[in-house]
């Protein structure tokens, strides 16, 4: 799967420099001079990373970062700034930026962080897919099976569950087997992982 390096900086010269730097890694680079232009063009399904300037007219880098997080399609961000103060750095990191580079910075530094960001996005996307898969599976369960599932997660034995639900141990065992099959879980541990 190819990954795209997105660059958003309102200074065109800096944008061009970042593009030529990104191309050295052998990935396609797409540069934008405004966050809104990026939001229009960004293919949410495309894995990659975002090299993002903080201070831009219209929408700041931090706002763009927040917007992507709210949409549920975050990209790992390498923040760059001409004048980073501590407050901005903290805010960027809280919003999930991998780092904040103060302009001007060395190529090695930038490429190192872009590489890390690309690796992180791949892992993030796999996690998100698994999560989506799990929740799709969990959605197939009936209310009664769901009840049993939640009790399993709290570590209750079949006997305790039978008591709590007012069922026979046998009925509980049946439900348990059914739900394990539905969600395709081989062990209780795997089942619990889906829930989280």
């Amino acid at each position: 799967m190819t990954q795209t390096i997105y660059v958003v900086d309102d200074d065109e010269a800096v944008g061009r420099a970042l593009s030529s730097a990104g191309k050295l890694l052998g990935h396609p680079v797409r540069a934008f001079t405004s966050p809104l232009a990026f939001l229009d063009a960004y293919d949410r399904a495309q894995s990659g990373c975002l090299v993002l300037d903080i201070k831009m007219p219209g929408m700041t880098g931090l706002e763009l970062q927040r917007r992507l997080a709210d949409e549920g399609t975050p990209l790992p961000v390498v923040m760059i700034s001409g004048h980073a103060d501590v407050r901005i750095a903290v805010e960027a990191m809280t919003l999930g930026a991998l780092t904040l580079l103060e302009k001007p910075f060395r190529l090695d530094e930038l490429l190192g962080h872009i590489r890390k960001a690309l690796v992180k996005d791949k892992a993030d996307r796999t996690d998100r897919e698994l999560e989506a898969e799990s929740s799709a599976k969990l959605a197939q369960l009936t209310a009664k099976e769901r009840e049993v599932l939640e009790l399993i997660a709290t570590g209750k034995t079949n006997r305790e569950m039978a008591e709590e639900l007012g069922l026979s141990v046998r009925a509980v065992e049946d439900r348990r087997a059914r739900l394990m099959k539905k969600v395709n879980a081989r062990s209780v541990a795997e089942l619990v992982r889906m829930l989280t």
Partner: protein
Amino acid sequence: MSSGFVPRLISRYATALSLGLTASVFVADLFTPLGVASGVVYTFAVLLALKAKAWWVGPAVAALCIALTVAKMGLAPDRGTTELWKVIANRGLAIFAIGMTTILGMMRRQSEGDRVRAEETMRAREAELARMGRLSMLGQVSAGLAHELNQPLAAICLQADVAAMAAAAGPIQPELAAALQEIAEQSQRAAEIVRAIRRMARSSGPGHDPVDLNAAVRTIVRLLEWQARRANVTVSLLLTDDPFPWTYGDPTQIEQVIFNLVQNGIEAASTQRDGPKIVQVETIAGTSDMVAIRVTDTGPGIAEPGRVFEQFYTTKSDGMGMGLAISQSIAAAHGGRIRAEQAPGGGAVFTAILPVRRQENAAA
């Protein structure tokens, strides 16, 4: 201060002139009978001597004159038809006149000296504020330059690195590769310099000392008093009574803001041909967390209210256009701002709003 020819001559040769006068009076005194009150003329010699630079010349000449007044009685005792008591009263009066002239003259010298010294202190203080103003202007200009240079430098540094890396990978003339490497390194060096300037500009933020605005206003108005007097402008104070909430920050920087606003007011008011020339300075305890200084003048008002805070914008023939720009940036650095408005009467109103010093701020 007088620049006339005669006064200048007198003050330069005061000692010689007064000694010459003393000698002539003494000779005239010797050849007139004791009955003539010639000794009184010695007071002019003393007055001359008091103009001398050294303080002791006056008293010394006075002592000499008194001695000569007495000596005449022994040297040429011919008193014609005058009674002895009249002669003694005559001489006594002369000695009294010389003595009083000396004492009054010395007192006047003293107060003049005090006034000159006070004026000198004020000038020195004003020069210091002006120097600070120039320094912060320089700081602001270099910070602005560093800011503007940073973006192109970022692009240059990165492109130079990219070029050097690409050159290292491919078959290329070694001179070209070395040149690219050199460009990358030197642009990085330029970036370091710019970074250092920016760091310095950032670190010189305002202090966190408590500042009493009423006291600051009084100090600055006292400083500018002679300027106002020279320009024939009345500066009136309308200070909100103590306890007035204190603000916090750098006392000198805040004084600088008040200085700029009041000085601008005085200059504006002084340009009015007719009508009152007044600058009013108020301190206002506004809302719970802000205080303000308002400077209102009866000058011509503000031509372009939107531009007065721009750097290098000025309406004065000898202005740099930095005073208000610096004041605004100082106010901003203190968490406040300055507003410029047209006064209802036609002049200008500048209001500097600053945050009140709170306990948590005090701890910072």
